[in-house]
């Protein structure tokens, strides 16, 4: 009880410290200079209609590379932690069969989910979305497969090949930006095209597709390591 009281006191103190921040916050009236620069010059420099994509892929592309690396390390550690225990997990267990409705529905829904993921990838520079969201949607499609057929096995080789190829492609595209244009991950070595059409924004769609495949395969890897490997009755 005393312990909880002390904890509550700490929290109240924390809130008191940040409360002055909240009380004085009145909302922004105009963009700050850096955002203004992105808003005014982004469409002509990068050619992407979606300015968030422009920031993620080109202006702050190096951050994105770092974040993908963090995700990769997290997936690798999860695999390392849980793989060692799987050897003695193949004792027989009762697993209830999926109903026929879910199984038939999955054959209809899985291609649809993947199609939506592909749409989100490819239109990342025009509409909301892009590699991270599309990757998550594709991982959800894989999840649908393993929910409908719990015994289905992953193609691990394909997964790791996809992961490394897309990662290497991302870095190569960044280096191509250094060689052919002015800087790392500069997308203007391909023609920028007309703003708002699907073949615009230079290399952004290609870079985002590689990010998407990378994120999708990493999330799938996390799901796979957490999945229980069992036999159906």
């Amino acid at each position, binding site marked *: 009880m005393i312990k909880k009281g002390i904890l509550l006191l700490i929290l109240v103190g924390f809130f008191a410290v940040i409360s002055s921040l909240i009380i004085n916050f009145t909302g922004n009236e105009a963009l700050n200079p850096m955002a203004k620069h992105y808003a005014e010059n982004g469409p002509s420099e990068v050619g992407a209609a979606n300015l968030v994509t422009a920031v993620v892929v080109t202006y702050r592309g190096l951050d994105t590379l770092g974040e993908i690396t963090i995700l990769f390390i997290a997936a690798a550690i999860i695999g390392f932690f849980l793989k060692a225990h799987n050897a003695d997990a193949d004792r027989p267990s009762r697993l209830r069969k999926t109903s026929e409705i*879910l199984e038939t529905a999955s054959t209809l829904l899985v291609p649809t989910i993947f199609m939506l993921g592909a749409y989100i990838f490819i239109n990342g520079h025009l*509409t*909301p*979305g892009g590699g991270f969201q599309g990757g998550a*949607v594709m991982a*959800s499609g894989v*999840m649908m497969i393993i929910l409908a057929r719990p015994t289905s096995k992953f193609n691990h080789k394909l997964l790791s090949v996809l992961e490394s190829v897309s990662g290497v492609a991302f870095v190569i595209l960044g280096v191509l930006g250094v060689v052919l244009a002015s800087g790392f991950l500069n997308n203007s070595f391909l023609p920028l095209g007309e703003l708002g059409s699907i073949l615009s924004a230079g290399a952004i769609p290609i870079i985002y597709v590689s990010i998407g495949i990378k994120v999708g395969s990493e999330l799938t890897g996390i799901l796979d390591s957490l999945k229980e490997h069992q036999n159906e009755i």
Partner: protein
Amino acid sequence: MVNTILIMAGVLMALGILLALFRFILGPDVTDRAIAFDVMTVSSISVIALIAYFAGRVIYLDVALVYGLLSFLSVVVIGRYIERGL
């Protein structure tokens, strides 16, 4: 006129979500709560569409698209966990 009707519709949707939240807190079992969650997601799709209308941006509908296709996965996971099929 049109805006007034749509605001009334929004209020009714919010009330529906509130009732589902009531069942979520009350619900005696996990499955009841999963159903309440399902009702909340489906209702929030139309809330998102209303926000998109008031903002006048068609691109906001992409979020409703993802919810419409993926929100049932959460409920399926709960169901499969309960019947020991995960």
